[in-house]
């Protein structure tokens, strides 16, 4: 315990930097994959493209079984080392659940409902914004939530290819067999992960339309 405290006090600056790097890596990559993923999901489920949507659904379904470290490794091969490769790896990996959920959420809306919206005189854009997306929100948010969990976990791994962050601390600890460093790194990484998860769960509640939460 004393060792932990001593290390913490002596290396405050480094710990703070690592924590910030960790969070930054997470935030940037999650933001990018949310934007890219939702756009992709919308695009492949547009009128006349449903077939592409279904194919992509199969691919992303299978790709969810690829280990995170494999993606990090492959990105390392093609892009190299540093912050950018780390972001790329995280984005690629977390795109999978977001595309999967957005696509399946949008595809699962009853065609009758869309027809009703069309027959009422909504334009395609209005149908997307006012009907399809709000109804798919719970599924899309679940995808974002698992993407965020994946990202915060993979962010630790990204230290291997120079992404920095709390993973750096943990690796250092493991290499030097210094328990106190491992504990600090682990604790902070787990803490951020849980915090992010709670925040997203709250956002999920707020953003889900009220009419979808009611059961008979």
């Amino acid at each position, binding site marked *: 315990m004393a060792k932990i405290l001593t290390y913490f006090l002596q290396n405050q600056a480094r710990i703070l930097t690592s924590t910030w790097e960790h969070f930054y890596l997470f935030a940037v990559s999650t933001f990018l994959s949310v934007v890219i993923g939702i756009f992709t999901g919308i695009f492949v489920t547009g009128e006349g493209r449903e077939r592409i949507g279904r194919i992509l659904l199969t691919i992303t379904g299978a790709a969810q079984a690829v280990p995170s470290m494999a993606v990090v490794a492959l990105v390392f091969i093609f892009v190299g080392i540093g912050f950018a490769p780390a972001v790329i790896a995280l984005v690629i990996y977390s795109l999978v659940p977001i595309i999967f959920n957005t696509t399946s959420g949008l595809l699962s809306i009853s065609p009758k*409902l869309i*027809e009703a919206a069309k027959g*009422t005189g909504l334009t395609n854009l209005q149908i997307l914004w006012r009907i399809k997306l709000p109804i798919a929100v719970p599924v899309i948010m679940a995808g974002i939530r698992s993407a965020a969990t994946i990202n915060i976990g993979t962010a630790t791994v990204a230290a291997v290819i120079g992404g920095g962050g709390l993973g750096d601390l943990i690796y250092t600890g493991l290499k030097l067999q210094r328990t106190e460093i491992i504990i600090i790194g682990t604790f902070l990484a787990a803490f951020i992960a849980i915090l992010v998860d709670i925040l997203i769960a709250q956002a999920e509640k707020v953003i889900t*339309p009220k*009419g979808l939460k*009611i059961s008979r």
Partner: protein
Amino acid sequence: MLIELKNITKKFDKQTAVKDLNMKIEKGSITMFIGPSGCGKTTTLKMINRLIEPTSGDILIHGKSVVDMEAVKLRRSIGYVIQEIGLFPHFSVYENIAVVPRLLNWEEKRIKERVDELLHLVTLDPSYAQKYPMQLSGGEQQRVGLARALAADPEILLMDEPFGAIDPINRLKLHDSFLEIQEEIKKTIIFVTHDINEAIKLGDKIAIMNKGTLVQYDETDEILHNPKNEFVENLLGRDRSLKALSLEKTKGFVTHEGYVITGPNDDQGSLREKMKKTRSEQAFILDENGRLLGRKILVTKKTGKQEMIQDSNPVVVDRNNNLVEALSKMLESGEHQLPVVSGRGKFMGVINLSHIFAEVTAAEAKNTIKGA
């Protein structure tokens, strides 16, 4: 002529769904499309608001081709009702009804008034405005669907099997209030159904389709008495004369004799006098707005003494019930005289069993003459 279909043909790939269809639909009437599944009735309906584009031919509304109109604008000017699933689950009842007014940029105050007005029209309590579709029963959802379609006061209403998912008892209730509403709004309604009884009950005219062509298109009465061919006869079924009876609405047979009207607090003695004088067996209790509260029956006991019994939940006939429905209510309750009420519970008079029998005899005679 409000709507005119001219040589309409629709092909899906190589299959012809609708073949060279020509028909004219009059303003303010209910036209029922009926036929076996795949006969092209729904396709025809959807071509009117351009959810499906015809392969060839033209559709005119007020003499203007729909193809020349912007599809989205056209749809906003035509009400569209489908099975209950068509309500947007994430919108409240209010928001569902407000969809088109909002698209048309109405002021919120005007929208609110319109929603209140429509909820009243479809006989839903104003408190329903804040509920969500999942909290409503199937029948209530369908009423909201109708209100939504009527929101911007469209001249035309397209209805695609709107009551298909509703159980038979509630479907009958919806039919009655649908006719009641149509009496008020007088829209041009095109209604697709697979239920011949529904078609006969609601339709001013019926269009019978088979394999993409129009088999017969006529006044309901005409179709029942003069089916064009075997296909139509089979569709109508064997009990045609009974079905013909179902064309007649109760409201045409209401009489104002043989009963007494009383207030809830009127004197018993004078009431008994009045009933004896008019030889009435029942007295109907009305409130100050003319709504039926219950009835009093004069019963003669074995001892010869007469006694007054109060019945606060009498069997009633809706004025839009047809004679078949009125008859079956009489048979079930064992009464030969039933009170007739409006959709809002207002007392209109009574209907007598003898009058229904007279109509049956008349209809039989009519069929025999035509058959001869």
